[in-house]
């Protein structure tokens, strides 16, 4: 009994630490605090480098460039140039962390985690979920790659979907009179998309990451080989399904610990009663203590 209480306390502490890392990462990527009051965006050298998570470069606080926006911009120029720089950064981040970027560093993921904490009806397992999650690959291919390549100067994902851009738009509108005066139908459409995401995030855990995020779809390809990955010790695993039951991404970590869907939230590692699951460099460092 005593060990159960201890374990629960340790779980809570580790969950808090995870949230703390997400909070710090969000603040670091949006460290231009002055911009939130003046509405002016940061124009320093930091904007040469893409941040790993989805963080709009038009957010008044952003100190780096958005990787998805930069990729669309590079692909959709008037004259095609292979995007060596942005692709290199995306491959590097992917090989280093995989979807741990979604779990630890993405400000939008953090926002959805906070929204999900609000007490409401929660439902993560439903029939359509399995099919809907393929949609993010279509978004990556269609809106981020094909459309910008076919219609120059059209960053389709940023323009029609990206909730990070809408949040940036709201912040700009709040502090910048000029921007406020120009918002119209497109902004209303994007606001509807953002509201749908926020409302669904109350019920479903990270709906944007599960079904829409092209960056998550990209990093998912690296999950199996990323430097930070999960490891399952088959000798310790008792097939109790505790990990599968707590997984909000509907994965069975005992069968596929490095699934493309896993965002490395760490719930399975924390709840494994035999410490069969570990996460870390090469999958073997950070277990349950």
């Amino acid at each position: 009994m005593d060990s159960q209480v201890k374990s629960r306390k340790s779980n809570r502490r580790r969950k808090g630490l995870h949230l703390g890392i997400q909070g710090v990462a969000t603040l670091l990527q949006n460290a231009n605090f002055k911009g939130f009051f003046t509405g002016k965006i940061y124009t320093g050298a930091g904007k040469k480098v893409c941040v790993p998570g989805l963080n709009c470069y038009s957010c008044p606080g952003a100190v780096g460039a958005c990787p998805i926006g930069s990729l669309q911009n590079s692909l959709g120029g008037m004259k095609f140039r292979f995007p060596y720089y942005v692709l290199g950064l995306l491959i590097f981040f992917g090989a280093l962390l995989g979807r741990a970027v979604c779990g630890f560093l993405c400000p939008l993921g953090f926002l959805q985690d906070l929204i999900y904490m609000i007490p409401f009806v929660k439902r993560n397992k439903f029939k359509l979920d399995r099919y809907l999650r393929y949609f993010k690959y279509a978004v990556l291919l269609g809106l981020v790659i094909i459309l910008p390549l076919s219609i120059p100067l059209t960053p389709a994902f940023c323009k029609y979907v990206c909730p990070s851009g809408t949040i940036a738009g709201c912040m700009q509108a709040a502090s910048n009179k000029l921007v406020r005066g120009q918002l119209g139908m497109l902004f209303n459409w994007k606001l509807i998309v953002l509201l749908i995401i926020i409302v669904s995030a109350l019920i479903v855990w990270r709906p944007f990451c599960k079904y829409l995020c092209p960056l998550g779809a990209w990093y998912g390809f690296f999950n199996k080989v990323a430097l930070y990955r999960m490891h399952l010790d088959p000798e310790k695993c008792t097939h109790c399904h505790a990990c599968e039951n707590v997984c909000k991404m509907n994965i069975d970590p005992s069968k596929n610990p490095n699934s493309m869907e896993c965002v490395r939230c760490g719930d399975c590692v924390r709840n494994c009663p035999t410490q069969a699951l570990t996460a870390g460099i090469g999958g073997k460092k950070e277990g349950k203590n």
Partner: protein
Amino acid sequence: MKFRLEKRKWAVTVALLVIGLILIAIGIDKKQEKSVMAKAVRICMECVGIG
């Protein structure tokens, strides 16, 4: 068998990291970081919903 698979995974990870770094270096050589910055230092009209 398992050891071999792990070794191969490590090789793929290192190869991807190196490919990433090489692409970044080529991009910098082609001054592509400047075009990333040029876009990022202005308010992106599409992103904020102006169009």
